[in-house]
């Protein structure tokens, strides 16, 4: 049996995260929900969840993060790994028959939608070694 790594109760930061999202939803109403819906649909569609289900989940994204803090990765009823709070889908990479060795290495690095442009403005941030 797998050994749970983390059986701690939900962390305060996660509850605060949910609070922040709730405040945001109240503040921005439909507009914020539309933004979150777009984000969640985009993040989940490749993970085997229907867009309708994802859209419904979008209004409770913060709650999903809190519920998942028991440390266990959620597994959907069909056995497909689902990450409601996931930014990146691993759907294309971890289907190896041997239990997880990536079967594909395509879906390569994605160029930016628009290239950087020269700027004369004072910088807001710096990108450099850290």
């Amino acid at each position, binding site marked *: 049996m797998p050994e749970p790594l983390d059986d701690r109760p939900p962390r305060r930061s996660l509850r605060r995260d949910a609070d922040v999202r709730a405040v945001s939803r109240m503040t921005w109403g439909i507009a914020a929900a539309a933004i979150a819906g777009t984000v969640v649909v985009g993040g989940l569609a490749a993970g085997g969840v229907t867009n309708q289900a994802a859209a419904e989940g979008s209004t409770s994204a913060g709650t999903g993060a809190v519920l998942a803090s028991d440390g266990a990765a959620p597994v959907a009823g069909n056995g497909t790994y689902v990450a409601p709070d996931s930014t990146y889908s691993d759907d294309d990479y971890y289907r190896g028959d041997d239990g997880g060795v990536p079967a594909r290495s395509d879906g390569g690095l994605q160029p*930016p939608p628009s290239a950087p442009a020269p700027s004369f403005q004072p910088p807001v941030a*710096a990108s450099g070694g850290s």
Partner: protein
Amino acid sequence: MVAEHATARFAALGTTALVAVDRPDYIDLAESVLRDELERIDRACSRFRDDSELSALNRAQGREVAVGMLLWEALSVALRAAAVTDGDVDPTVGRAMGEMGYDRDFTLVRGPRPGVVVTITPVPGWRAVRLDRERGTVTVPAGVSIDLGATAKALAADRSARAVHDATGAGTVVSLGGDIALCGPAPEGGWPVRVTDDHSRLDGAGETVALREGGLATSSTTVRRWATSAGARHHILDPRRGAPAREVWRTVSVAAATCVDANIASTAAIIRGHDAPAWLSDARLPARLVSPGGTVVQVGAWPEPAR
């Protein structure tokens, strides 16, 4: 001047965290959201915290363990990085990094540590790590130590920029030690970002570019260096040699659709050395590479510097 915006900066993840939003009234909320995201990523993915999920996984000695969503995501991203770079960016370098003396937060590594002896340790390879998506478990072979440093920080930047934008509705820039992610609308003319050797220097030698979306990451051998009995070491490890990458480029900056992809490419470019420009060009990634002597090579759609 850049459109009205507000910026907050604080120390986190052993480096500097910065958030800028184009709605100044929301800067406190933006900072709060960023701090929460970084705390979560640190508790899940830090190699230097005994209480992190990653440290527990590294101590599991080959046992199959269930991990939380965030660590799962970070491991998935790290293994994808290895896959798309043919192993140049490999998360199983943890033990080799430790053997090089990078076994604690860098603020402690760069201090005086007499008697640190460096040994070269083979990197076991990313294919040794097993993710079982049906069981939601991870198995790391005994003796293998995962280091998510190359990609977890960029993942945190992408996640944080999105979370801040979701919470505030503002156009958002998040920078974590110079790994930059954008989300939401950009001001007219884009967000100006200085591209230089050291992320802490807004006036450092380099150039300023305007970004509208996606991410920008810079990898450099010039900043995170430390002294050992075998001479100076830097933190970008060539997995095939188990040693710091040869310094064909001192600094590489790459723009991509996400900060994660930019970070993967900039890290791999340092390791690939002379082959990096062609590889970046084939991937259609705008990039700026600086040799140890200061010669600048621009790749793809990277712009000419503003004069």
